[in-house]
């Protein structure tokens, strides 16, 4: 059961303001409820697997500068800084 408070807390965690909690609660609730089906899959003992790569296939340690002045294509401020909002103390 997902409560409105939980939704609000998660929206804070994910850093998205939402206006209409009720509407979100309803739909998110429907979706998450559907996930309850996973409880009956009987997979508790299953191991999690991942693709693998050999260390020898990884990138060589070379310095290759990016061929453009990237900062000029991004938001910049006072020369080449990026500006962020004020941080709370």
């Amino acid at each position, binding site marked *: 059961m997902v409560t409105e408070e939980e939704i609000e807390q998660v929206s804070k*965690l994910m850093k998205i303001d939402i206006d209409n909690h009720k509407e979100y609660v309803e739909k998110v609730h429907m979706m998450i409820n559907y996930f309850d089906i996973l409880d009956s899959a009987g997979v508790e003992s299953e191991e999690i697997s991942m693709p693998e790569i050999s260390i020898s296939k990884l990138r060589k340690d070379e*310095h290759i500068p990016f061929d453009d002045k990237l900062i000029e294509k991004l938001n910049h401020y006072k020369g080449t800084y990026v500006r962020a909002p004020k941080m709370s103390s």
Partner: protein
Amino acid sequence: MTMIGLEIHCQLTNLNSKLFCSCKANYREFEINENICPVCMGLPGSLPKLNQEAVKKATIIAMALNCTTPEKIAFFRKNYFYPDSPKNFQITQLNIYGDTSVGGTGSVMVGDKKIRITRIQLEEDPGRLIYEGSSSKNQITLVDYNRAGTPLVEIVTEPDFETPKEVRDFLNILSDILANLGVADPSLEGAMRADANVSIEGGKKVEIKNIGSFHDLEKAAHFEITRQKSHHSRDIEIIQETRHWDDKRKITISSRSKEEELDYRYFLEGDIPWVKIDPEIQKKLQTEMPESISSKKQRYVSKYNIPAQVSDVLSSDKYYSDLFEEAHTESNAKEVANIITTELMGLVDTREKRKASKFTSTHLRDLADAIQSGKVSRNSSKNALHEILKSGKDLSTVISELDLGNVSDESELSGFITQVISEEPQAVEQAKSNPQTINYLVGKVMQKTKGKADPVMTRDMLKKQIGV
């Protein structure tokens, strides 16, 4: 009982490129936001491409700290929002699905005490925030991402330290080890940072972050122990929390982080498959590992008969031990060690001085050989060393330019001797009756040659000419 645990972050400053892209690992010489690319800026569509050498170097560190090294390592995402983190998650390591961090449990000896290592993980450094404006009201936050993605090794210890002094000793040993491995230059600004977990008997664990230097770490630990003990004695509960080190006031301050911000939602980084480091590669890394500090020390003592204390100093600083290794021969080893520990150390004791000096191992070898063969006196060798550090000229040039060479040419020396004999008839007579007093005449010759006369030769020639 006080318990202190550490989380040490060490940049792999000797790598050429960042952990997941080909920007430079050592970001220090760039203009603001000049050392960036779509990958380390986390631009839409970019993917991490793992640096092979970073994995190897991190594995070597794990081996040097006697940690287990798994055959497969995995990367995880640590999710949190902060402006210095371009993706708003950090790629790091964790042991959720078995031991998949680059290093498992290990240990380091600090004197007679064993400090246990919990885990070693390879991860990316964030960018740097710069605050402008005096008050919090007009504060402006600026970000420089040059550092973002720099390869970082995090070494987590068990809470095995009981005093701030033990912490300092450990960190000194650790930074010597890392430098000796050739993986990092711990003397670089910001290359090594540490957080501490401090708790006293009956209290909860308190994490201290934002400690700028090892020196401050000792102070922070000390402050925190005192604070906790004082709380305890007044029956104030010590809560589990994160505190920040206030560099200006030299105190720790509680940072009020909300509960929900602490949920990092760790999960496997799908963009990096599990990396296989099979036994053959591990073996190869092990054999290619630089000789350890303790083994060097032992060798210096047993092979060259260098005193233990000198060997200790020599082996623990990579700069000196490298010089020694390159400069010494079977015959001059002791002299080389002597020059390093008595003369050189006082002259190049900081990273800046080392960088500015033009001194090489060839200089060192020449100098030791020249002293041993009597080409220069020990006295003059100091002047020569100063000049070499400044100019980088080779020893023979320095000797001739500053006229430091020993006067060991017989005809040249005999000129000085004849002069002294004619100027000091009384002393000559005295020497004839009491040969011991010949030293006075030797001294006079030395004066005339500004200390460059070979003393043994001078004495022999004086004796001959006076006839004793």
